[in-house]
């Protein structure tokens, strides 16, 4: 329980207050997933990759073109296009 609360506190420190979704979060920032919405096949796929509400996500890299972004979620590292990252609400 202590660890979880520390983690949450950290996420508050680093996350950009303006970010509404994962794409806006920016490299190096951490956030907590509030909701995942969009095309049902995509949402199912995001679940399979480890995205779920309440989980902590961190944007670790961004391609030179700004898209896709590379995200750490749970125990996995995932590359997401902009269109996919905006489905992850923070």
């Amino acid at each position, binding site marked *: 329980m202590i660890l979880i609360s520390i983690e949450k506190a950290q996420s508050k420190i680093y996350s950009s207050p303006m970010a509404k979704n994962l794409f806006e979060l920016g490299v190096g920032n951490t956030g907590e997933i509030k909701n995942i919405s969009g095309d049902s096949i*995509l949402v*199912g796929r995001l679940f*399979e990759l480890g995205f779920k*509400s309440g989980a902590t996500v961190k944007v670790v890299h*961004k*391609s030179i073109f700004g898209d896709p972004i590379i995200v750490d979620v*749970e125990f996995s*590292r*995932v590359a997401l*296009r902009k269109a996919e990252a905006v489905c992850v609400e923070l």
Partner: protein
Amino acid sequence: MKGLDVKIVLIGSPNSGKTTLFNWLTGHKSKTVNYPGSTVEYSTGRLLNSYSLDASITDTPGLYSLVSKSPEEEITLQVIQGQTSLGVPQSLVLVADGTQLARHLFLLKSLKKAKIPVVVAMTMSDLLKNSQVSYDLKALEEKLGVPIVTIDGRLGGGVKELVEVLRKFENATEPSGEGVTELKLSQWSPQEIESEIRALSQLVESCMKTSPVEAQQRIQNRTAMWDRVLLHPLMGIVLFFGIMTALFTSIFWMASPFMDFIDEGFGSMAELVSAHVTGLLGDFLANGIVASFGAVLVFIPQIFILSFGIQILEDSGYLARAATLIDKPFSWFGLNGKSFVPLLSAHACAVPAMMAVRNIPSRKERWLTLFIIPLMTCSARLPVYALLLTFLFKDKPAWWAGLALATLYFGGLLIGALVSLIASRWIQAKDKSFFALELPLYRAPRLSHAIVTSFKRTLSYAVRAGPIIFFLALIIWAGTTFPAYDIENKTERLEKSYAAQMGQFLEPVMKPMGADWRVGVGLISAFAAREVFVSSMAVVFSVAEEDESKLTDSLLNKMSTATNSDGAPLFTVASVIGIIVYFMIALQCMATTGTAFKESRSWKFATLQTVLFNIFGYLSAVAAFHGLRLFGIS
């Protein structure tokens, strides 16, 4: 029959280490076959004798869940349900990566419904050990209700224990496969999926002896370090091009001695045959059978080296990163980052490249990739380019031809991109384009696995493309030999042959691109395999040179003195560039057309592709020829 043929089916997510486990169980002795009536491939083999359990093992395509409606999912369902010719499985092995346990166990709930005994094989135990992450396995087994065996894919630890569990299953109740109909999760709402995953994730974390946050950091530590370099916005791109350049250079440099060896080997074998067997039979054996075998086998080294390189990149975890880096630029042309690997393999041979298209999720992107694959510069074009570029630049320093060759490679890519861009406007997208790609942890690739896999892939090329190339080569031998087979002089025989008659018939078509019937014969014969162009040109222009290495030289001489019917030189800068342009674009390979049909499962697609690229290639050749003449280059 019970106890004699225990059917074991391996199921698991991509990157779960399923193939590695399969290889440990079968000792690499397996065959890759298509599921009946489907393009989905699977491997099947027998459990090694040393385990003293007579069982067949079937691998299934890697999938995260049975939620999406992909062909792979359908097939896996059918296998579990016992609807394929494989029969009802006796036991299921769910292969789950120990570092991704919660996600990889998602399949378990559906599998348990099948009322077939399930065992979880937890792989990557070496990685867990190195990261000092461990589970309370007893508690985990209790909570999941299935036995768990930890597997070390590098050393094979735990495989024996897994077989023991399977042996116990053998004595359990006869599996019926009933209840499997409920397996289908398509009806699940996203909320249900999410809550299921959440429950699993809590369950797994509660059995973890390390705190989850710390475990995550330890497991990803090394990968994060590598990614800081390999996914760096600038450095990542530079390294990407560096790695790809290294891969390509190795295809040509490393393969060429082997290719020369095969080429010379078959050359001397043909000579040996014609020296001992006289007459038509000797000619058939030497120039028909032996030469066509050579045509099939000469590309084996290149295909092997390219598959090996791709396998090493794949196993190390880099290929997923490469696809990520290239995804954005590819999307401008209607493609997906996942199109990268097929297009990369297409530079060796279009046939295995087309087989790699299956991993692209969106149908539209899959078709676009399949469509432009033949435009990539495959290795069969190299001998042709080598001949024609040497002709163009024979008085120039060597780097002129090298630069021109690089331009041709780039040209193939550029035309492919443009065709894809135009075609993407025409094809209606029935499904959305997704990328969402898991980037696996970096691992040191295992050499033996890469060698065995690329060997199997090369073999599958030979088996698939071989008979078609062989058959067509025989037809061309017959076409260039008959009906005047009894004439000793090769040139005279050819002039009277069916191929020449067809070439002369085609002369009006050849004229606009500055060529004559002799080039026409070369182009027709190139439909067996593009490089056959060079050898038929040699026959057409009557190059009777015993020494192989001088063959090109004398062909070049003949080419520079060859004239049209009106006495003007036949091979000019403009006409040779015309032929090169045709080779760049035209789909002259029957094996490719056959594979395009198999992969698209549409004759319309395969025919359209072949006809369109030939017309496009021809028109471009004509345009290049006349365009150059307009600018005073004849």
